[in-house]
């Protein structure tokens, strides 16, 4: 019997060992290892979330018995549990979806794309789980780099010139981001002699060294999260990657750096940034929503449209900063709403990118102008696409609706009605770009659509299943989630 | 004795600075590379002097590493055919 806290180690080490094993095995072995890791990883995520749910207390594990500040602790709170479950669900779906693309036929020489894809999938997972669980800002830096190093090759997996350039631009952005983050780590260590999140939260005072560190780290993480106006790298990178990789990047990878920002603002340095800074972050988020949505409306290619929609949907997450900062009922609602937006977007966007991938495979192109009558030719895929779109628009019943409704209610409850206006405008714009795709596809064209390739039923089923998950998230009650509060209230009480 | 070693290291660093001008001015790439090598040698000398003067731990080992790796960079350059 493994102690529950040891599961935190396994959540990180299992995919890491998967990377090592897959490379050692090579060829067909890589996919087998990845499938085993997906099964094991899902079980670990469920076990951790289940433990938190039943005990209502956070978990922590001290590596090697070296307690912080000298050593490193792993910690799982409600947020970690949510993120572990989301990443297990999305990565599982992506893994099953990608089996058709990244096959290694028996008895043939090892192929490049499958080996790289499966290894990078596990690399992303290692990085993500490390971000969700690490309790130390420097370990989180290493986790961020794990994400970068596995995400960049996924962008350029197909080796086309434009995706190579997109990958390089992404890499350069990500590098500036991580160095700025590291610079902040140096300052914090210099100020307090520890980078442990809990210890820092007790020691940190509002003084110059903390302000500079927070500003540098936030700027660096914003570049990695593609927050407006640092979003320019995202659309070409996410649209150029193969469908399964786009799903992974848009659904999860950008969320890694965002959660790190949350850990920084809410857990490591609570109450340090003033209300002005929080309003500024949300203002950038608002700009991202408006600009991203308008640009999504103007795209002619489906994958670019979805990528710009990611820029917009990321914007909503930044409402967390002004709305969930303090302790109070509205703030707790905003906290659940913001994290739900993250989860709902991850699930819906993964489904949407995979649907777009199937559409592209079936048609041989992804130009929105050529979608007339697609609803009849690919009913399941278009249905899944529509369901995922509902979540992005925030229509009930969907995860996106629940999230946006909570954020909206909280912003009005806290007297910050201006964010409510932005949320509503964003919903309308999302409806605009979704219907631009759905209307011609459902209306039916003059001539029947000729499909270039057949799409297997299991792959359609995976996309539909994920889209239904995005819908089912909408069954969540419109109140603060108890699981999400695990470890949060106690910590806030400790600090205040 | 310490004072003398320190003075010597300052002197060598100044000489390195003069050599640096060659790195900056070229004109040919090979001039730059050779100047960088000279700089490597000077740097190792300064390191050993400083290390002895101020009893820095590991100075000799660092010098050893530098000597091996500086030679390697030069080889990389020669191999790259960059002698034009």
């Amino acid at each position, binding site marked *: 019997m493994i102690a529950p806290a040891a599961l935190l180690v396994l959540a990180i080490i299992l995919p890491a060992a998967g990377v090592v094993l897959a490379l050692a095995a090579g060829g067909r072995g890589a996919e087998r290892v990845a499938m085993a890791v997906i099964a094991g990883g899902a079980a670990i995520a469920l076990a951790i979330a289940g433990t938190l749910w039943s005990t209502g207390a956070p978990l922590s594990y001290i590596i*090697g*018995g070296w307690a912080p500040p000298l050593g490193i602790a792993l910690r799982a709170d409600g947020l970690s549990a949510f993120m572990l479950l989301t990443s297990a669900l999305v990565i599982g779906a992506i893994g099953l979806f990608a089996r058709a693309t990244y096959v290694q036929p028996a008895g043939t*020489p090892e192929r490049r794309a499958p080996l790289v894809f499966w290894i990078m999938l596990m690399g992303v997972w290692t990085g993500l789980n490390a971000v969700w669980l690490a309790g130390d800002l420097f370990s989180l830096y290493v986790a961020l780099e794990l994400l970068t190093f596995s995400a960049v090759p996924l962008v350029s997996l197909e080796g086309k010139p434009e995706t190579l350039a997109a990958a390089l631009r992404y890499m350069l952005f990500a590098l500036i981001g991580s160095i700025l983050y590291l610079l902040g780590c140096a*300052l914090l260590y210099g100020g307090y002699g520890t980078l442990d999140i809990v210890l820092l939260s007790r020691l940190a005072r509002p003084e110059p060294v903390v302000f500079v560190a927070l500003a540098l780290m936030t700027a660096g993480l914003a570049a990695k999260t593609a927050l407006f106006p640092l979003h320019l790298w995202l659309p070409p990178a996410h649209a150029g990657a193969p469908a399964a990789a786009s799903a992974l990047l848009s659904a999860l990878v950008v969320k890694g750096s965002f959660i790190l920002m949350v850990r920084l603002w809410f857990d490591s340095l609570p109450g340090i940034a003033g209300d002005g800074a929080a309003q500024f972050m949300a203002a950038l988020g608002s700009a991202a929503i408006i600009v991203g949505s308008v640009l999504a409306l103007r795209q002619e290619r489906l994958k670019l449209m979805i990528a710009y929609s990611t820029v917009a949907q990321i914007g909503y997450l930044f409402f967390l900063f002004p709305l969930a900062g303090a302790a109070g009922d509205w703030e707790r609602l905003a906290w659940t709403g913001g994290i739900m937006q993250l989860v709902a977007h991850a699930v819906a966007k993964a489904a949407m990118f995979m649907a777009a991938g199937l559409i592209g495979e079936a048609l041989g192109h992804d130009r929105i102008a050529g979608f007339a009558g697609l609803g009849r030719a690919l009913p399941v895929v278009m249905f899944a696409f529509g369901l995922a779109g509902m979540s992005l628009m925030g229509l009930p019943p969907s995860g996106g609706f629940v999230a946006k409704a909570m954020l909206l209610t909280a912003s009005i409850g806290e007297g910050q009605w201006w964010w409510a206006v932005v949320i509503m405008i964003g919903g309308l714009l999302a409806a605009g770009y979704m219907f631009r795709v759905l209307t011609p596809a459902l209306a039916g064209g003059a001539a029947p659509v000729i499909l270039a390739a057949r799409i297997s039923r299991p792959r359609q089923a995976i996309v539909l299943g994920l889209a239904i998950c995005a819908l089912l998230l909408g069954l969540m009650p419109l109140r603060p989630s108890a699981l999400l509060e695990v470890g949060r209230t106690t910590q806030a009480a400790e600090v205040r | 004795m310490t004072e003398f070693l320190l003075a010597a290291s*300052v002197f060598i660093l100044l000489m390195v600075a003069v050599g640096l001008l060659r790195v900056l001015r070229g004109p040919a790439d090979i001039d730059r590379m050779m100047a960088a090598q000279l700089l490597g040698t000077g740097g190792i000398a300064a390191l050993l002097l400083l290390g002895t003067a101020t009893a820095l731990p590991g100075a000799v080992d660092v010098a050893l590493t530098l000597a*091996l790796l500086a030679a390697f960079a030069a080889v990389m350059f020669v191999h790259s055919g960059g002698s034009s």
Partner: protein
Amino acid sequence: MSLALLADAALVLLVLGLAFWINAASRAFPAVVGYVAFGLLLALAWLRLSAGDVAMTEAAVGSGVTGAVLIAASVRLRSAETEAPPPALPLRLLALLLSGLVTAALAGLVLWTTGPAPSLADQAVQHLPGLGMGNAVTGVLIAYRALDTLLEKVVLLLALMGIWSLAKDRYWGGIPGPSRIQPTNGALILLARLLPPIGIVVAVYILWVGATDPGGAFQGGAILAAMWLLVMLAGLRDAPAISRPWVRLCVTVGPAAFIAVGLTGFALPNGFLSYPDSIAKPLIIAVESVLTLSIAVILGLLVAGPPERQP
């Protein structure tokens, strides 16, 4: 001003002068040469900051192996180097303002915070005897913060995979480098025969003293990698095809051993990545030795680049 401080000031001026040159040089190659020199002087600075382990890493990796990658790249790109227009003046001014602001903020913090900083040195030293170690930095890397070191090894593997992933499909499993190097340069061949035996001895020594003095797996591995690359560059040995089983074994054995030892810790009271007191030192040295091998092969292959021809 004392003489030692004068030496420091001279060093700092040289470092900064080179940094500006690296930014300002009109072509890439001189900038890269400047960077190699910069790394070397930085190693000196690290030694002056009493960080021998870092100085060695900077010399081996920051200047040496990184320099090799950059020199090779700048030479390959030289023929196509064009004068790209810099961004518009307002953007340049904005960048200047931004970087000036960051510099001013950092400089202000450096000047205002005086006196001793909070430190973990006491705690780090206190537990060293239990590990059988004398070098606190090695203790941090391999014990106190071993998780970071372990994940960093995964980063290295992912970087290697990332570089390999840039191969064209038809060359997958093939040999890095555009063509086999012919052993024609006499001086180079001589050097490649003479230096590696010395280098290997030094690398093993650096690994061994890492337990008590500056040194360790990474520095030793970097030296080994440089020696291997030297043999390849002289044309004495070709780079290996990346599909070779021994290549896959060498790059994965270190991280795998580290993970395996970490997992056996679950059987001990302190759990994952803890070492039993009685055999801590031999166990750590064993892990470090295998890691050194993996690091050497990974670094060498990172410099060699993606496969560009069939095996």
